Each structure stands twice: as structure tokens, then as C-alpha cells.
């Protein structure tokens, strides 16, 4: 019961954060002196496009009405005048599927998926672009994090149990290098060495997407293209998780309850893996989930270097082309991923540490 209350509060908090982010992003793209729509208009000459963009950005309306319509677009339950073609609330009604719920006067309340607008470039729905690129990035981020967590925790525990030994010092030294190197640097080196110079041994390519559509329209998964980006992306998290696990484990081992466990006559491995490790992992879990959220969205350089199609490379592409609906949609999606990951972390934390549940 306490747990449900705790989580529902977190979810409510998360919703408020998302509303705040929506307002912020909207203001950033609509109210600031740099008017995104104007910049886009400058590139276009034909009248139909001009008009389409003007309608799409609702430039004839004041900014507060635009914000209200933006929320209406995003909300799964929204109100529209379906019969009226000039209604600014519903630009792309022909392409977005929805379910009619009920009508109030001229307005119809519908259930739909959140509408992020359309790309200027491809005229495709932004939500489609997001969903198309999300799986590749998610697989990349999750694999990198899984690899980093397993290796990092094992190295950290190993180092802590042999504090000040040769192996402890070696792990510390190498992980310091891992933390200090920029990810694009590692990405270049790895791509060159394993994908190019050692290609005859590894059989891996320096560049290439995980998911692509071949000439006959079939979706093809090229799993070996995942290997090098995962390694490049995982290096920093491995190093940080190893150091964090090490220091947390050392802290825990000096605690009174570890002495109690020894006095009980428990064996070395029970003390380490049952009593100490579970306490030592709490700060590590927080860091892992924080990292995961960042990796979901922050793999920009890695995706770019490896030409790996995902959210990151898509964002860079959109920014280059002033494709503001796509940039806004992707930014909003990033925020939602962060909020959801945080709620999941809190839940995990409450499960691992009973003390958190009570507050």
C-alpha cells in the first residue's frame, strides 16, 4: 500500500515535469527571437508550402493559443472541430487515426496517439520517425549498459576485495583512462582498428546500421553492426561503475553489520555476496539507471561515427536541416524517456532498500 502511494506520487511528479518540459521546449522554438518557422520559410518559395507551414505552425494565432493547441496535439484525449477544415487544432487529421469519444457542440473529443506534427523535409509524421529510430538506439543503449554493468560490477568487487594489490591498482588506472577519454575518440579508434585494420580477422565493418530496409522492402537486422558501437559506448560506464562499485563495496565492508555477519560464523562468500554486495549496490543502481537514460539519447557521436541509424543520428540530421518539428519531437521524447527511467529507478530502489519504502 505504501509502495503504491510512493509510486503514484512519483508518477504524478513525472507528469508535472513533462508538462514543464513541453512548455520550455515550446517557448524555446516559438517565442525566442529566432523564429523557427521564419527560418524555414526562408528556404521555401512555393506558395502552397508557405501556406502549409504557416498553418502547421499556427503563425496567425497568438503564442498562448499556439501553446494550448500544442498541448491539445500532445494529449491522448483531445478536442477538435472535425467538420471544419480551417480548424487549427487538427492539421493532419487525414493521416492520424483516432477514435471518436463524444461530442460537445461543434467539438468532438477523440482518443488518439500524441501528435508531434510533421517533418518539413520528408512530410512524414514525427512520431513515426521517433518510433522507427527508437528500437535501434534502445538496443544499443541497453546492450552497452548491460555489458557495462556486468563487467563494471565484477571488476569493482574484485578490486575492492584486493584493495591496494597489483590488480586493484591496475583496475583503478585503466578505469581512470576509460573515464577520461571522450566517447567519439574511442569510437574512431575502435572503428579504425577493429573495423578496418583488423577487418580480415574480426569480419566487422567500420560503419553500418543495425536495422535497414533492403531494395525489396524487407527489414534486415545486421547484428554484427551492433558490436563495435556497444563497446565504444560502454567504455565510460564500465570505468565509472567499476570505480563506484569498488568504493561502495569498501565502505560497506567496513560497516558494523559485516562484523556481525563474521561473528555469526558465516563464510567469506556469504558475507561478501549476500550481506555486503546488496548494500553496496544501491548507489550503483542509481548511477546505472541515470546513465541508461543518458545513453538512450546521448549516443549522438557514437551513432554518427558508426553511421548507425538511431535517435542520435536522426537528431543531428534534423538540426542540420532546420527540421524543427522533428527536433522538438525528439527533445520531448528524450524528456519522457528520462522521466520514465527515473520512476523505474525509484521503484527498483524501493525494492532493493526497505528503508526507502517508509519515507
Amino acid at each position: 500500500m505504501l509502495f503504491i502511494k510512493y509510486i503514484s506520487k512519483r508518477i504524478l511528479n513525472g507528469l508535472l515535469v513533462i508538462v514543464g518540459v513541453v512548455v520550455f521546449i515550446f517557448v524555446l522554438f516559438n517565442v525566442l527571437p529566432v523564429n523557427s518557422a521564419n527560418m524555414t520559410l526562408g528556404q521555401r518559395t512555393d506558395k502552397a508550402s508557405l501556406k502549409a507551414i504557416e498553418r502547421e505552425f499556427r503563425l496567425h494565432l497568438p503564442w498562448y493559443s499556439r501553446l494550448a493547441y500544442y498541448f491539445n496535439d500532445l494529449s491522448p484525449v483531445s478536442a477538435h472541430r472535425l467538420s471544419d477544415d480551417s480548424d487549427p487544432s487538427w492539421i493532419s487529421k487525414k493521416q492520424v487515426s483516432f477514435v471518436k469519444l463524444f461530442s460537445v457542440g461543434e467539438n468532438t473529443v477523440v482518443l488518439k496517439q500524441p501528435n508531434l506534427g510533421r517533418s518539413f523535409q520528408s512530410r512524414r509524421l514525427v512520431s513515426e520517425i521517433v518510433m522507427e529510430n527508437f528500437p535501434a538506439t534502445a538496443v544499443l543503449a541497453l546492450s552497452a549498459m548491460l555489458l557495462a554493468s556486468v563487467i563494471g560490477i565484477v571488476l569493482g568487487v574484485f578490486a575492492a576485495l584486493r584493495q591496494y594489490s597489483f590488480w586493484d591498482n591496475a583496475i583503478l588506472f585503466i578505469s581512470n583512462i576509460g573515464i577520461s577519454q571522450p566517447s567519439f575518440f574511442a569510437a574512431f579508434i575502435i572503428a579504425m582498428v577493429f573495423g578496418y585494420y583488423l577487418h580480415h580477422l574480426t569480419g566487422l565493418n567500420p560503419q553500418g546500421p543495425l536495422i535497414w530496409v533492403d531494395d525489396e522492402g524487407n527489414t534486415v537486422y545486421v547484428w554484427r553492426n551492433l558490436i563495435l558501437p556497444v563497446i565504444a559506448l560502454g567504455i565510460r560506464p564500465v570505468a565509472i561503475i567499476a570505480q563506484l562499485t569498488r568504493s561502495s563495496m569498501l565502505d560497506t565492508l567496513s560497516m558494523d553489520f559485516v562484523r556481525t555477519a563474521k561473528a555469526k560464523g558465516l563464510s567469506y562468500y556469504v558475507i561478501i555476496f549476500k550481506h555486503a554486495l546488496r548494500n553496496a549496490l544501491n548507489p550503483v543502481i542509481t548511477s546505472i539507471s541515470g546513465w541508461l537514460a543518458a545513453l538512450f539519447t546521448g549516443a549522438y557521436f557514437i551513432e554518427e561515427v558508426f553511421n548507425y541509424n538511431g535517435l542520435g543520428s536522426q537528431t543531428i540530421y534534423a538540426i542540420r536541416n532546420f527540421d524543427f518539428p522533428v527536433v522538438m519531437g525528439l527533445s520531448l521524447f528524450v524528456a519522457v524517456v528520462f522521466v520514465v527511467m527515473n520512476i523505474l529507478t525509484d521503484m527498483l530502489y524501493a525494492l532493493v532498500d526497505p528503508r526507502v519504502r517508509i519515507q
Partner: protein
Amino acid sequence: MERKLLLEVKNLVTEFKTDDGYVKAVNDVSFNLYRGETVGIVGESGSGKSVTSLSIMSLIPNPPGRIASGQIIYHAKDGRTVDLTKIPEAEMRKFRGDEIAMIFQEPMTSLNPVFTCGDQVMEAIILHQKKTKQEARDLTLKMFEKVRLPDPARVLDAYPHQLSGGQKQRVMIAMAMSCNPSILIADEPTTALDVTVQATILDLMNQLRHEIDSSVIFITHDLGVIAEIADDVIVMYKGKIVEQGSVMDIFSNPKHPYTRSLLACRPPLQTRLRKLPTVVDFMREENGQIIELPTTVKEAIDKNVITQAETDRRREDLLSRKPILEIKGLQTWFPTKHDFFGRVTGYVKAVDDVSFNVHEGETVGLVGESGCGKTTLGRTILRLAPATGGQVLFEGRNVLDLPANELKDLRRHMQIIFQDPYSSLNPRMSIGAAIQEPMSVHGIHANEVQRKEKVLELLAKVNMRPEHYYRYPHEFSGGQRQRICIARALALNPKFIICDESVSALDVSVQAQVLNLLIQLREEFKFTYIFISHDLSVVKFMSDRMVVMNKGKIEEMGPSDEIYNNPQKEYTRKLINAIPKGELEDIRKRMSVTVGP
């Protein structure tokens, strides 16, 4: 009755590696433990008493520690005789928790926070007695009943943070006793607890060890506690045994001056003293040699007695002065329950309608068990906790509605000294800087040079040396740190000081020194104190008047001696009875009951 040997410690030397080579923490210690008896080891922090017990358990962290020489001969349950310093770790592990069990000082941190109390006790039972999970669970429940935990079935599934300190220590005792150990080592098991809880735990341990037929090694810094539980006593000082004998011998005829100082330094209940006798009244140390002074315990106490006439005169004088602090109907309620929107629906009434006055130069003692609201009351007076209602008038001004700038000015005159000298000093600030900081904040003295002079003066006042100015807190012992905290409180030249359990974390011998310092400063600077403690004997020694608190309300108040001699409330009587008195009469009575034919 024939005594059966259980454990022989012979010439034990345990050392720790430091930058200056090996330092002997335990130096040539020998003693015997007999079946069914209790040996008390007493001494101050750093005397080697805990290291002795950890040596017996083979739990000395190595490196940096090691048992350098000596033997620990144990007569095991199966009839074998083994030297615990020689056997391999795997064999030792079978003894630990099964035949030799241990209880530690800090019940708050000695249990693993992520497992239930039941699981942690069952773990030992399953390991040593080869029981199934269900059998272990039933046994644990029985143990919890035995240690008189309220609602044992609930505690079985409760996590440590859901229990009070006393309850956690009961869980620890249940864990240690669960495999019917031959030897139970209790390392300061009651030091972190209130006196009332201490009394119930001692009582429980006395009863259980007879039921289970365990021998006990009881370690403490307080001879008063030893009197309640031990058959034989070992007094340790700087790693060596300075005196050992039966509890009657030690209390009736203490031979070593250090033992005498330990007996004398506890605040006496029958008389009122000007200052407490301390180690320096009994011995001096020159080049590591102890030079004995011929003082007896009685002499040391008698020369400091305050007569009734003196007490009466002081009281009249105090009452004739105007009150410096008036507390009227003070309430501090903490919200405990909220509805979904965060509105408060329930309170804990930590301080509930409390009124009393403090006269200029007077010391008022606040006494009660943990959770009675005494600490919250102290903090509310200083506005460190928010008041819910009532008034606190300091020299006629209501502290509770002063604006921020006037409050800062007021804080100069009202200071607080906290309980834990370890966490109330910033570890990254040299002690000189720590004492100087409040002066800089309040702009006292013209410049840094003058401030530094003042700090050196204050260090001298609290018996610290000028070269301590640039040192950091970790280089000092608990008693020294508390003296540094006192110096910091004095830096602003306050009129009024609240001492919140300021001596509770200290050894009795160090406690006496700090109490003497507080009294001496009171005479010199004419301070007004509110002195908060759970220990009625300490409050009685310090205070002119005493306020007894229970559940946020005042139970009774009046002159300290009157409250002690003639308590009106059951609660006050409970507090008085819980004090370990260490009187010969009580020891004789206990020995005649427990060591029967």
C-alpha cells in the same frame, strides 16, 4: 562448588601496524573464564578491552592487526581443548556464533539494513544447528519471546530501521543466544542506550545466561554497570591489566589508583559535589610510569562536598534574580501523516504545552528517556526546530517571532553543544578555524590577528594546547573533541548555553572531566545552562533545578535534590532506579542470589 575452566587467556599480545612500527593494543593480558560465570572488563576507550574480545573471536582485522604472542585456550563443547590463536580460519568459523557469540556496542548499525530481523537470526540457526527454514523460524520466534520483544511475530518480518535501539539490541542478543553459546562476549552492549533501557537489557542478560548456562565476558567503561552483572572484574589501562579480582574485592578494596578513579568519577547520588574526582586526583604519569597518589575514593569525594547551607544560599540568590528565559505553553508538533495532496492529517507532539523559567546564572536540567521531547525542546528554544505554538522569551523578547537579522544577533547570546562530538565538527576544518568561524560571522573582534589570539585563549580555557590550533578533528579523542565544541560555543561570549546530551557519548572518566570543565566555566563566566540528558545522576550533579519530561509534557519539576530524594511520579522513580549505582550492598545482595549452592 567446583569451578570448571572454559577459557584461558595467557599472555596475550595483540598489535597494530602504524607508521611508527607495531603498537601493542593488548599487552600481556592473562585471565580465566569459568563455566557459568561473568568476567567484566572495564577501562576507557583505547585501553585494549575491545581488542581483547576481538582477539578471542579471531576478528582482528589483518592487516594492520595481528596476535603477536600468547595463547587463548578454549575447552570446547565436544571435550576438545584448542588454542584459538592457532586453529585455521575454517575451524574458527564453526565456533563463531555457535559456541562463542558476540554482541556489539552499536545496535543501530550492527544489523544489516536490507534483511529482516528474523532472517538475520535464522541465518545463524540454519548454519550451525542444521535446521530447516521452518524450524529455524519457530526457534527464532521463541528466542524473540525470550528476549521479551513486544509482538515477536511482527519483529520477525520487520526491518532493523523499524525498531528502536533497545529492540535492536534485543534482536542482537537473540541472535547471539540462539545457538546456546558457551561464551557470550558483550562489547559495551548498553553504552549507546538510555539508562532505563540499559537497566532492562542488563536484567535480561543476567536472566538469559543462567537459562542457557553461558559464560559472559562483559566489556564496559562504566564500573557501575559491572557491579550489576559481573562475578570477576578486570581493570585495563593502556593495554595492560592493572587490577583483577572478584567484584566484591574491587568495589570494597580497590588497590590500583586507576580503579579508584573509576569508582569515584561517577556522579554520586547521595551528596552534592563541587567537582567530580578524576584520574589526576589518584595518579600521575611520568615517562610512562604510573605514580600513585595516596588518595582514597572517600577522601576524593569528601573534599568536594557542598553543604546544604551552601546549596540553600545559592538557590536564594538565583531566585532573587530575574528570569533570563521564560518558556510559556511551548508546542512543537511534527507532521507525520499526509493525505494525497500533502495536507497534514496527523502529528507527533514532540513538545506539548511546556512552561518553565530559567533564572540568570542557574542550571536547569532536562531529563527523560529518548523520544520524550527533551532534545526537540532544546532546539525549539534556539529556533533550530519550528515551534507550533507558545512563547520563548529571552530577556523579554520573544525568540519565536524575531526577524532574521535580530535572530542572528540573538544567536550570539544563545549557544548549543551537541551530543556527538564526532559529527558536529567539520572534518575538513582545522579546529582553530572551527572556533574562529562564529567570531568572523558575527564580526566580533577587529581583525584576524585578534581573533586568533582569542581562539588560543579559549583553547587554554578548555585545557587544550596552542599547537592544537592547526590540527584537524580526527586527531583528537571524543573527550577532546567535546572540549573543542565547548570552546566553539564560548567563542561568541554567550550568556546562555544549551548542552544537549553533551557527555552521553563519552566514557565515564572522560565525562567527569567535561562536566568539571562546564562547572568551572559556569563559575568563571556566570553562564546560564539548560543541561539535557537521559541520565538522572548526571543531571542531578549539574543542575540547580530539574525538569522531568515524558511524552512531550513535563512530569514534574523542582530543586534537583528534592526530586531525587522525594520523587512524586512513577516515571521519575523509574529513571532513578535505572541508574547503575555500584553500591556494595546491592552487589552483596545480587551475589547471594545468583551464586547459590
